[in-house]
């Protein structure tokens, strides 16, 4: 997860939009396929769904247990 996650964060680090609104470009883009940059990250752009090397194990409740559920 770490390697993939850091790559995703690197992609996000360049966030620049200050007003949060999308802007219209003045030049038409004719790209019709989904394309990725050379630095595109595995977690968001390519590769299959990845399992962790170590499987989950049975645990018990204790300090700082968190809940995974629908929201």
């Amino acid at each position, binding site marked *: 997860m770490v390697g993939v996650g850091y790559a995703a964060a690197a992609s996000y680090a360049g966030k620049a939009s200050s007003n949060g609104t999308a802007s219209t470009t003045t030049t038409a883009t004719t790209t019709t396929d989904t394309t990725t940059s050379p630095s595109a990250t595995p977690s968001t752009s390519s590769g299959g769904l990845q399992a962790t090397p170590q499987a989950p194990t049975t645990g018990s409740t204790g300090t700082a*247990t968190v809940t*995974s559920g629908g929201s």
Partner: protein
Amino acid sequence: MAVALKTWKALGTSVHVVTTHDDGLEPATAAVRKVVLDVDAAYSRFRKDSELTGLNASAGRTISVSPLLATAIEAALRAARLTNGAVDPTIGRAIRLAGYDDDFSRLAADRGPITLRAELVPGWQAIRFNRRSGTVWLPPGVELDLGSTGKALAADLAATAAMAAAGEGGVLVSLGGDIATAGVPPLGGWRILVAEDSRVSPSGDGDVICVPAGGVATSSTTVRRWSRGVELLHHIIDPKTSLPTTGPFRTVTVAAATCLDANIASTAAIVHGEVAIEWLASWRLPARLVENDGTIHYIGRWPDPASVAA
């Protein structure tokens, strides 16, 4: 190894940050808060000033988007591709017409009956996305909803940012039950109570698992439900019908290398319905599925409490 925990409300749900070192909690929390704020501004469907709202209002034109929104769209398109369209970001109009058109906390209990028509959503292939130029073109009438992937992606980004800020040890970030981890876990792994509703107390009854790394996500049709007349609707839309899913599984939890992958799989499993178990097994992902009648299935390397007890 000691752990420290911070909790607050954001993105219409609860945020939890856990660190293995007390000193890391404050900087990790600050990092997560920033990611959450950025995500909300970039791809909230309910903020009039979000980038996503602007993009949806600009269908038919090529739009430049921020790197964060581009990352989110890229993740959504990957999800659609890997699930054969079961998790499709072009459900935006469908979920809005189904009545989920505002922050869930502001949805009225019942705004009267509605008539919904079964039809295919426009489909993710219709989106023209260029990662290199950071531009997006949506066909007229198409609205994106990044809800199926956006929160999980945010959890991954937040965990990474929190780990960098904490500097040592490990961190866990939960955004409404979508859980991402980074760094060195506590002894035995991160303890996670698996429930159908993320609001269930962590000290409550239920299956508890420990994960050493990666992410865990749960998708459920038992939460974010609303009534329209006699119809009880929920937020997981089947792209083949534009309607809430009606399959045999009400809740699916998946563990994966990232929270994003876990959530893609859990949501797709709900949509895939009858073939969900076979589909999850093909990806070799540990999973826990709850049928509508409460029967629980443990898939792959997911720990079966019964076998442990035996």
